């Protein structure tokens, strides 16, 4: 067993770390200030343009896109370090194209859809959204009731979706809907591509969340789309949707590792120099235990990520590993960030430090892509079944 990353991926990680340190970290002060003043913290077009230019020059573009779409097609193992580095900063940035739906589309598009949707998306020319959650079905998407009914050469969709990210900016949305009520998630849920501006697709309201996030509630009312908009096989929309979640969960685990390491660095630096009652905080057992737990748990998370990524690159099913990583990573980062905030005292509560932004970000992460409790439940069920 070899725990060394290949030379070229170590070099890539080095390049990405430098990019984060030299290009993204310097933007943090402005991001924090904007967030504190209540404005969105997103980077402006003027801030993004030079970053994208650098990404192009460095080949940091389409890292996980397949070669035929002009991407670098890096293995999951190489991406662990990339996402970890990005997680260290609160400057909101992902290497373009930001394409969480890519893997789902790769597994499902036909030739026509590949050219019309996938390729421009993989090049970073379009933005997409995914609409799974409903007011009555979140953690349990199999309980969705949005219906798509075949009508001649069209599908007609009716229903309500909620918590949808980026739907206002998106050029198209992948909408999940029930096509066979009797079969449900076992062959009765399909995925559809709905273009922006399609009549019957309406954003009903914006909902503000913590961490500067904003999601939307979407109403589909007699939304009519041609059959060519069916993504993948009718009734088989659930499995590719799960595939998308696996990729995302590994990515989230790596972000969490980066966040936790940053918080740990900050906590250690502070504990060494802050003196209370005549002694540095570093000498107090309560702080030492936070540090000890954090180094142990971040080490675990790193090994979990390497393990899952290696298996995924070998083509193994890593659903279980992805669940563990999503659960463990988000809870670990939550604790380390919270301890770091505590160690900083009042300073830890300010909007001058990135810790509070990290705390809000990881708080959201414990809900989306499956709440912790659901992952625990799934993991336990799987294990219990093995012994039954």
């Amino acid at each position, binding site marked *: 067993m070899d725990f060394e990353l290949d*030379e*070229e991926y*170590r*070099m*890539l990680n*080095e*390049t990405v770390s*430098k*990019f984060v340190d030299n290009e993204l970290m310097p933007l943090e002060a402005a991001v924090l200030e904007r967030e504190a003043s209540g404005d969105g913290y997103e980077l402006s077009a003027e801030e993004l343009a030079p970053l994208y230019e650098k990404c192009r*020059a*460095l*080949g*940091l573009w389409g*890292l996980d896109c397949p070669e035929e779409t002009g991407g*670098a097609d890096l293995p999951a193992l190489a991406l662990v370090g990339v996402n970890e580095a990005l997680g260290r900063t609160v400057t909101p940035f992902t290497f373009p194209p930001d394409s969480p739906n890519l893997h789902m589309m790769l597994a499902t598009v036909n030739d026509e859809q590949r050219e019309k949707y996938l390729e421009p998306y993989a090049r970073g020319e379009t933005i997409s959204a995914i609409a799974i959650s409903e007011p009555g079905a979140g953690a349990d998407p199999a309980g969705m009731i949005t219906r798509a009914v075949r009508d001649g050469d069209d599908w007609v969709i009716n229903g309500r979706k909620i918590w949808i990210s980026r739907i206002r900016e998106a050029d198209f949305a992948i909408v999940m809907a029930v096509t066979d009520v009797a079969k449900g998630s076992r062959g009765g849920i399909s995925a559809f591509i709905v273009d922006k501006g399609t009549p019957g697709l309406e954003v009903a309201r914006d909902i503000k969340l913590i961490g500067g996030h904003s999601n939307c509630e979407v109403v589909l009312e007699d939304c009519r789309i041609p059959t060519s908009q069916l993504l993948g096989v009718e009734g088989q929309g659930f499995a590719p949707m799960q595939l998308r979640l696996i990729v995302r969960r590994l990515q989230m685990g790596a972000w969490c590792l980066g966040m936790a390491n940053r918080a740990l660095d900050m906590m250690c630096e502070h504990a060494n120099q802050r003196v209370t009652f005549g002694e540095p905080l570093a000498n107090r057992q309560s702080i030492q235990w936070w540090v000890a737990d954090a180094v142990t748990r971040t080490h675990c998370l790193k090994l979990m990520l390497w393990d899952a990524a290696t298996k995924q690159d070998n083509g193994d099913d890593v659903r279980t590993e992805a669940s563990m990583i999503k659960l463990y990573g988000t809870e670990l980062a939550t604790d380390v960030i919270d301890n770091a905030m505590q160690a900083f005292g009042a300073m830890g509560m300010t909007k001058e430090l990135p810790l509070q932004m990290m705390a809000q970000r990881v708080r959201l992460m414990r809900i989306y892509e499956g709440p912790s409790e659901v992952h625990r439940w799934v993991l336990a069920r799987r294990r219990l079944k093995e012994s039954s």
Partner: protein
Amino acid sequence: MKILVAVKRVADYNVKVRAKSDNTGPDLANVKMAINPFCEIAVEEAVRMKENGIASEIIAVSVGPQSAQEQVRTALALGADRGILVQTDTDLEPLAIAKCFKAICDNEKPDMVLLGKQAIDGDNNQTGQMIAALTGWSQATFASEITIDGDAVTVIREVDAGLQTVKLKLPAVITADLRLNEPRYASLPNIMKAKKKTIDNTTPEELGVDTSPRVTLLKAAPPAERQAGVKVEDVAELIDKLKNEAKVIS
């Protein structure tokens, strides 16, 4: 023009290096290693010369342990064409390293050897000068600007009194100072290309170099910890302390 560029594997500049508990040297176990930053500047300069059509081939050379292949590979990812690793497990002194370079110069016949002005591990600032002495080539150290014109090189050097401009004839040995350039990062396509470039392995013995040490390391210890300073009330008190306590002014 063919350029030999030196890359040394050292502890990353961000690492706080500690002495081993038995005082036999720095403790480098599990420490992040990197290319010496001044070597990185030398590599960058060579790559720019190649991009400007001045250099035709860049050979990255490292003298060090097998793991120093990583730094040679990084130089290849930054734009060097091929690499040479002079493999040794002993921590060589500048003279032995310079002799390795002299032997490689005899084989490769480069027009220029580009090095960092010093490596941030030993901070010796000797290897470049020694290579120049051994080869008999002209030398310019602490370069902050290099201009090539035919077989003449004009180098602006950073010296204590300011900037000094010297003109040399090729072949020459030039060492890079901090302000010579700002090194790029290795791009992903170049990292992938670097995989296919060759690194030749050799040893000081194969090069016929006597590496026996001239210097004996007696003890490696951390510098004394800085005492906390004192706050003075006013300028008069400061002057009084400088005069009577520190005795640095009279």
